[in-house]
């Protein structure tokens, strides 16, 4: 079936099996490889994207539900050349180890900051439940607080 949506600000149409995971459409159909496949069971969060501003695990999201929606992947998180506060904080705190899980964590964090601009540790524990095989959780926590501070300094971002 034909599915039309906006991805990272660009209108796209694609012919695909409507039941296929949106993750396959993004990675294989649109060649946006930043979103990762981890478990395929909505358990790890590596495939996290935003659909109409809400975080969604794209390995478990049928492509047909993307019709008419606004999708953001890690490639669309920055504002042009300007890094998103989450990206800046991730660099400042040197969060990644192998890096595989990081796009998912960053998308989950951006979604968290949209809802809770200044999250407590408890907010982070409750809302960020992705999995990192390299256990970078400690640095991520610091980066999440830093991203909140950066966003507060520059509210337009």
């Amino acid at each position, binding site marked *: 079936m034909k599915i039309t949506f906006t991805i990272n600000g660009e209108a796209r149409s694609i012919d695909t099996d409507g039941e296929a*995971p949106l993750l396959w459409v993004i990675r294989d159909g649109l060649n946006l490889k930043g979103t990762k496949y981890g478990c395929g*069971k909505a358990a790890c969060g590596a495939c996290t994207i935003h659909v109409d501003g809400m975080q969604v695990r794209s390995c478990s*999201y049928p492509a047909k539900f993307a019709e008419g929606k606004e999708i953001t992947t890690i490639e669309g998180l920055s504002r042009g050349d300007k890094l998103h506060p989450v990206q800046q904080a991730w660099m400042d705190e040197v969060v990644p180890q192998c890096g595989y899980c990081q796009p998912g964590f960053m998308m989950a964090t951006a979604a968290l900051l949209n809802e809770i601009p200044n999250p407590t540790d408890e907010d982070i524990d409750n809302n960020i*439940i992705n999995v990192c095989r390299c256990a970078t959780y400690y640095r991520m926590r610091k980066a999440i607080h830093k991203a909140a501070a950066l966003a507060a300094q520059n509210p337009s971002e």
Partner: protein
Amino acid sequence: MNTTKILYSIFLGLVMSSLILWSSDVNTSDHIIVPPTEIENSPFDLMMQVLTHQRCVNCHPAGDRPRKGDDSHITRSLGIPRGNDGHGLQSISCGTCHTTQNNDYSGVPGAPDWALAPESMTWEGKTRVEIAEQMMDPQRNGGKTPQEIMKHLTEHELVLWAWEPGIDAEGLPREKPPVSKEDFIKAVKEWMASGAIIPEA
């Protein structure tokens, strides 16, 4: 009504009255009386066989976290608290992973209005009688009338999902409740029509 039917009705009436009289005599700790609604395969029994099945109880858990699987376990990915409205938290919610349909690729179940039941409707760890009392109590059931409860049980897609639970993450079909959907709906309607009598605890 012909004579045979009249005689038969009188006979049945006599048998029932003597049973009631007999039961009031023997209601002691070593002679437990089974109330009529607790009879095996009675409408109450059939309804409760379903409502106490993990397909229902997993989303009526004690505490704040949904349960998963035929063993009703908690996983990290289901560590999301119920939040204020049973749909999860501000940025991570049921809809992060669940949609309005089962997903055969990921094994993630889904149905319209996928959510946890409110805390006042916790079923896990409760007896059949406690569940029924809670379900019919407007203070705890979200202000629902018996008619609305019946509609919820017999028509709501989220409830009826129990008979189309899809496959799990290993690709194996999820267990369905032990009573068929048709028999469950019939039982609920019969139980409601006969006054929704809850047996004594």
